[in-house]
């Protein structure tokens, strides 16, 4: 009798042990390994910005990033919306600078790895991106010559140690910009070409310093990465790297039936591309057509890769050179955001349309048609348990 009960106990133990260990196919293991932070390659040099990895430039960039003097009324800096203790975002549905914008602030972890910037990719380098809010009337609302004067007065010595001598600004108007008010535009147009070029050069260097600082903002290791590392090495998972059954179900759905990994791929959980996923517009905001309208803007930007302020060879301009300029799928297409840290930074989507991850998952399962253009998302049969599991899995990317 005793041997029989021992035998049965052993069988039960074997079965339980089998259940407790996550069971992944080789294909699933490969996908999971491709998402782990350990698969993130080293950050490539940015040859279009020869100051990208100059420590003094990054230090000046950091000063400028947090300096409210870098705005029209001295109340807004980059860090007003890109808050250092909030993953460099602001928790608001739409960013608020000098005015109320129409887009959600993007977090900055790993931003230097993007080929395109903003939700619609209307800039093609990190340094060109950094310049744009400076002159946007709803963000920092400054103007180009005012920034040049400000840099000379406030940071002249630091600037010159990095970028060389500042130009003579004695005849440059206090307020002028090709993008400003009518008076500022008139003042800009009245400036001699070489003077405008000098100011543009100082302005570009502001962007290059801020970009040098932003290159240091990288994604941090999460519970998912510890789990993935143990799975890849075959080590026994310990402590918080152990995934619950629900987390494992969510992960399997994420890389399987729910097709999330199609766009949210690689160690940053993004394909860095633009997609129409049928996200509804927000009432009362100006019309927003996403990528299709950004193409013209990036082509027209004097600070783009083909412009006079790029360092290095034009070979670095492949993304701009081979950009899709006219295709129906660019309508209401927005950049795939990284999902690292997403669980702790609602609201979601390009204008903060959804207040929780449950709403996001419900949106993708339902796959409503887009108000304009065609959504790439197909309807998905997900049970309540499966939806909850996806959300629980996403939280492991924030822990």
């Amino acid at each position, binding site marked *: 009798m005793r041997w029989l009960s021992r035998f049965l106990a052993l069988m039960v133990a074997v079965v339980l042990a089998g259940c407790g260990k996550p069971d992944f196919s080789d294909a699933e293991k490969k996908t999971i390994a491709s998402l782990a932070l350990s698969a993130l390659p080293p950050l490539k040099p940015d040859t279009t910005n020869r100051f990208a990895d100059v420590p003094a430039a990054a230090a000046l960039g950091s000063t400028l990033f947090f300096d409210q003097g870098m705005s029209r009324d001295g109340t807004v800096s980059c860090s007003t919306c890109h808050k250092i203790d909030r993953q460099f975002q602001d928790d608001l549905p739409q960013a608020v600078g000098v005015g109320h914008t129409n887009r959600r602030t993007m977090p900055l972890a790993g931003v230097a790895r993007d080929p395109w910037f903003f939700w619609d990719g209307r800039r093609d380098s990190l340094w060109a991106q950094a310049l744009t809010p400076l002159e946007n009337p709803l963000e920092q609302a400054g103007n180009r010559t005012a920034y040049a004067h400000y840099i000379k007065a406030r940071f002249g010595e630091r600037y010159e140690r990095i970028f060389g001598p500042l130009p003579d600004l004695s005849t440059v108007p206090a307020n002028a910009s090709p993008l400003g008010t009518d008076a500022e535009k008139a003042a800009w147009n009245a400036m001699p070409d070489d003077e405008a070029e000098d100011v543009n050069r100082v302005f570009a260097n502001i962007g290059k310093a801020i970009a040098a600082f932003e290159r240091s903002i990288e994604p941090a290791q999460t519970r998912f990465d510890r789990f993935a590392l143990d799975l890849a090495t075959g080590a026994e998972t310990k402590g918080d790297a152990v995934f619950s059954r629900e987390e494992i179900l969510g992960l399997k759905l994420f890389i399987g039936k729910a097709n999330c990994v199609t*766009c949210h*791929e*690689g160690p940053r959980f993004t*394909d860095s*591309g633009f997609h129409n996923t049928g996200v509804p517009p927000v009432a009362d905001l100006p019309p927003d057509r996403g990528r299709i309208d950004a193409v013209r803007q990036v082509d027209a930007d004097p600070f783009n890769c083909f412009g006079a302020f790029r360092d290095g060879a034009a070979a670095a301009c492949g*993304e701009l050179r*081979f950009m899709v300029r006219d295709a129906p799928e660019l309508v209401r297409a927005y950049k795939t955001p990284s999902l690292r840290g997403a669980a702790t930074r609602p609201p979601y989507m390009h204008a903060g349309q959804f207040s929780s991850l449950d709403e996001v998952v419900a949106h993708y399962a339902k796959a409503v048609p887009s108000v304009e253009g065609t959504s790439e998302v197909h309807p998905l049969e997900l049970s309540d348990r499966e939806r909850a599991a996806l959300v629980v899995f996403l939280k492991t990317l924030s822990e």
Partner: protein
Amino acid sequence: MASIWRYLLAGLGLAALLVGILAVVFLTAPRSSLPAGPDVSRTKNTANALFVASFAPERGVVRQGELQSWLLTLKTKAGVPVEGAAIAISGGMPLHSHGLPTSPQATDYLGDGRYRIEGVKFTMSGWWQVHFAISATAGSDTVLFNVVL
């Protein structure tokens, strides 16, 4: 009494054997029976069999998410290199209703029927299609390559 135990033991033995067989069957069976994928051959006849086309990454490996150069090699059926061809490129992911994330272009002729196709980028894993419209003195033809990542 003893015989009952014997039967019980035999029953348990048979049950264990059955479990073992089932385990072997389920653990070694393929996880899913995927339908045959698209034809991913890198060399094929063009649609009207005017040319033989080959399409391969210039550096041998496909890197997902990176801009890459590929080579399109065009020859006639007799193996003569096709020179001076005008090449238009399109494509996309048929299952996701979107086109290519970039606009690849034929940027250089390298001789021996080889054309450099720059700006190729596959941003996601899955089934991609790259379509070439080719126009040369011998005539015009098209060819479609499947790339599965």
